[in-house]
């Protein structure tokens, strides 16, 4: 028989959260290691804080002992019981394993908890039964007993690992250079419904690199969205005299039907026609001649990677209309050859997710289930979905959050590299291509005036696989 717990995933997660973000290591399981007090103590002494879980028919109850113990040590014991999905607790003071495990038949007005493994019975005094909300006052027979070691999800060892990863990611990103130095800065476009956390993501990224929390981009939660200007944010590297190798482009939020970002503007943004601080108009797209319209955008002006940003809590409740918009934009991105990822924010406010879970967010049960839903409903590959928790209200940086933000950013830069590499292939070693696409390659290889034909209204980059 396998040494695996009987707790459901949900129960285990609840219990881990209840005792403060723990991770469980199963040490003893009665049906495998026998219903024997001696065996239990052999397995569980000197193992640090432990939690014992007893399964008695419909009841799941147990004892949390927050200190390492030996057989005769007197240690503080907290009893708990699952009620539906809530946990109730009762602090019964100190006791030693040698007494609560071996003295089932003693007089026990003083003790709140006695266990008899051989007879598979657990007993408590009336008061304790009541406090735990267990609707009976007779000994409970049980069929399984398990003991786990409880470790902090973010103990010293893990924090050290996280800090190392953090420093490495930060250093890598500082010296990152776009594929073959085709450009200096990668442009990442943030797209998504209003209130998804696009502007907050920029603030978070900036904060991580600045070393303290900043709130440059206005963040809001009212339904029309605070950002109605196109903003392209470059961040100065505080440790070097140059900007960081990426620019985050914050757009107006997508809205229902005619509200929000105008769909026709997206193509203009992707091709680099729209400049910083353009005032969006939901009703119509930018037109050539506008002071924010760039006539002959170069490669550096184009979008190199796009991220669909959603609030993880509401992503599965998007309206049909919004879903259709997203799918349409995705086709547009693919047509333009722009690689895209999905960024889910607000993971910190998800039910059951604790700070400790952020260390391994992609294996955290509730998050995993959510990602599968997004994959199924919206049709994005799982590996294209990234998860972050933004800096919104706090003033202190947290390396655990930083690592999530930096990892997401790294995937975006890689995606941009994929885009750039694919572009370059068009011209490598194929002269015919040069001939055919002279006007296209000119867009970014030659200064704009060389290929500009007076009177021609044709935007040269139009023909770049975007027809």
């Amino acid at each position, binding site marked *: 028989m*396998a*040494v*695996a717990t009987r707790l459901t995933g949900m129960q285990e997660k609840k219990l881990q959260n209840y005792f403060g973000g723990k991770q469980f*290591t*199963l*040490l003893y399981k009665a049906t*495998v*290691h026998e219903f024997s007090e001696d065996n239990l103590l*052999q*397995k569980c002494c*000197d*193992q*640090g804080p432990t939690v014992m879980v007893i399964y008695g028919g419909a009841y799941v109850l147990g004892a949390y002992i927050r200190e*390492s113990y030996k057989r005769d040590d007197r240690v503080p014991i907290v009893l708990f019981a699952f009620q539906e999905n809530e946990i109730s607790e009762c602090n019964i003071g100190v006791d030693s394993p040698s007494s609560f495990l071996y003295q089932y038949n003693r007089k026990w007005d003083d003790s709140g908890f006695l266990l008899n493994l051989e007879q598979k019975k657990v007993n408590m005094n009336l008061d304790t039964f009541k406090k735990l909300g267990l609707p009976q006052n007779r000994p409970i027979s049980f069929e399984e007993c398990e003991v786990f*070691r409880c*470790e902090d999800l973010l*103990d*010293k*060892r*893990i924090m*050290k*690992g*996280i800090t*190392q*990863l953090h420093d490495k990611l930060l250093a890598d990103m500082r010296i990152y250079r776009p*594929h073959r130095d085709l450009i200096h800065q990668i442009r990442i476009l943030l797209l998504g419904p209003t209130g998804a956390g696009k502007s907050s993501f920029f603030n978070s990224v900036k904060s991580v690199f600045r070393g303290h929390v900043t709130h440059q981009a206005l963040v809001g939660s009212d339904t029309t969205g605070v950002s109605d200007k196109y903003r392209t944010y470059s961040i100065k590297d505080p440790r070097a005299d140059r900007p960081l190798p990426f620019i985050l482009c914050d757009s107006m939020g997508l809205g229902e039907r005619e509200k929000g970002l105008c769909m026709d503007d997206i193509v203009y943004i992707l091709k680099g026609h729209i400049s910083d601080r353009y005032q969006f108009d939901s009703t119509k797209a930018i037109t050539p001649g506008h002071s924010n319209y760039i006539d002959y955008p170069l490669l550096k002006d184009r979008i190199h990677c796009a991220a669909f940003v959603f609030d993880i809590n509401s992503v599965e409740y998007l309206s049909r209309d919004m879903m259709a918009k997203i*799918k349409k934009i*995705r*086709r547009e991105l*693919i*047509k333009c050859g722009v*690689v895209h*990822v999905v960024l889910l924010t607000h993971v910190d406010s998800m039910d059951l997710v604790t700070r400790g879970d952020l260390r391994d967010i*992609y294996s955290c049960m509730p998050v995993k289930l959510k990602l599968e839903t997004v994959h199924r409903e919206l*049709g*994005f*590959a*799982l*590996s*294209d979905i*990234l998860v972050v928790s933004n800096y919104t209200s706090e003033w202190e940086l947290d390396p655990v959050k930083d690592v999530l933000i930096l*990892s997401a950013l790294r*995937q975006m830069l*890689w*995606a941009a*590299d*994929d*885009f750039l*590499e*694919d572009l370059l*292939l*068009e011209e490598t070693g194929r002269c015919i291509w040069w001939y*055919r696409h002279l006007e296209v390659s000119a867009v970014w290889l030659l200064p704009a005036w060389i290929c500009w034909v007076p009177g021609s209204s044709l935007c040269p980059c139009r023909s770049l*696989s975007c*027809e």
Partner: protein
Amino acid sequence: MAVTTRLTWSEEKSLQKMLGNVSLRLLYKSSVHGNKTSSILDKCTCQGPTVTMIYIRNTTVGILMLRPYSKTYDHLKRPTPTFYFSYQRNIATEMRTEVLETETKIASGQLVFYSSGQEVLSVCLNDTKLSINDSLSKALGVYTRSDINYLECEVFRVEGIEDDTNYIRKITRATKHRNPLLAELRTYKPCADFVSKIRILLLGPVGSGKSSFINSVKSVFQGRLTRQAPVGSDVTSITEQYRIYPIKYGNYGDYLPFSLCDSMGLHEKEGVGLCMDDIPYILKGCMPDRYQLNPNKPITPNHPNFISTPSLKDSIHCVAYVIDINSINDLSSKMVAKLKQVQKEVLSCGIACVLLLTKVTNCSEFLQDNSLNMDKSMTSQSQIMHVSKMLSVPIYNTFVVENYTSEWELDPLKDTQILFVLRQMLRVAEDFFEDLP
């Protein structure tokens, strides 16, 4: 003292991956529980498969045992495959490994492993010494003249082993085959010197994982996840352009002499999905890269980029039919008809083909014990036989893969399987050249 492992977090994560995406649960730690065999046995008997780690200054040696620790000696007496590994601090991904049929003896303060009567490794708990025999220490790269003093010994339960008998072979596959396969493919040259680059075309139903396979191959060579080929699901094909993807080694490396061609998926309805009349043009090499496919209208020789006189190097040399393994039981008759039509075209061009079954959940279940080929018991499944017969792909050219679509980092086990499939495709393509008049 806290019962916390000596492994760093990153070592722990790499190890869990190298040992086959398992979880490691610390049960025994010598500095806390004492250097006695009785303490190990107290904590570790009947705990299922375990890995015993011995930390020497910069090296860590591990022993993965499938059979649980036991207080009765008889239980461990039967020789069983045991996985020995070692790695240098912080680079668990580059472990050296050895598999030996060994029996275990735990007595009088010692933990000893024997192979055909010879002692191969022993841990003397009383005086914290490790000794390894010559051949094993050579295999593990642990060079010593005499016994080594170790710092600590820890035992973990290994959770997440699905199939005991196959398990050790599965993880050795990754550690033994991955790097040689990668090296072989990096230096691969087509043996037919009249063609410099081999072209492999992926064909299959919408959403079967064609583009994902291309990304998977690119990712292995690039050493990180790549997303160049657009991937996703929708009612109609996500891939709407005909694309020829070259493969590059590393970030700044050279292009390898093969490329993978991606096309729109096949759809059971007429006028949806890849246009059947486009297929002969693709196979012959008339279709240019980045051609925007139209489900209703095939490319015509009048198209400005049409390659009217394709040379041998422009044409397709190997076709891989890509099919979701979960769908083979309910391929619609219309889809079957389309696939048969495709197969006819492929056959008439004399192009060799393979069958690639994607979206398996546990690749290694399908593989033979000692090689990366599909296991007989799997290939004899009537549905797989049926599909391979329908597409006239010999069963030895039928493969399974699990694409890189549901994780965020590379995994040596997946790498190995993807590289293996690619190599077989190249071999099949070479047969095509040898068969040329």
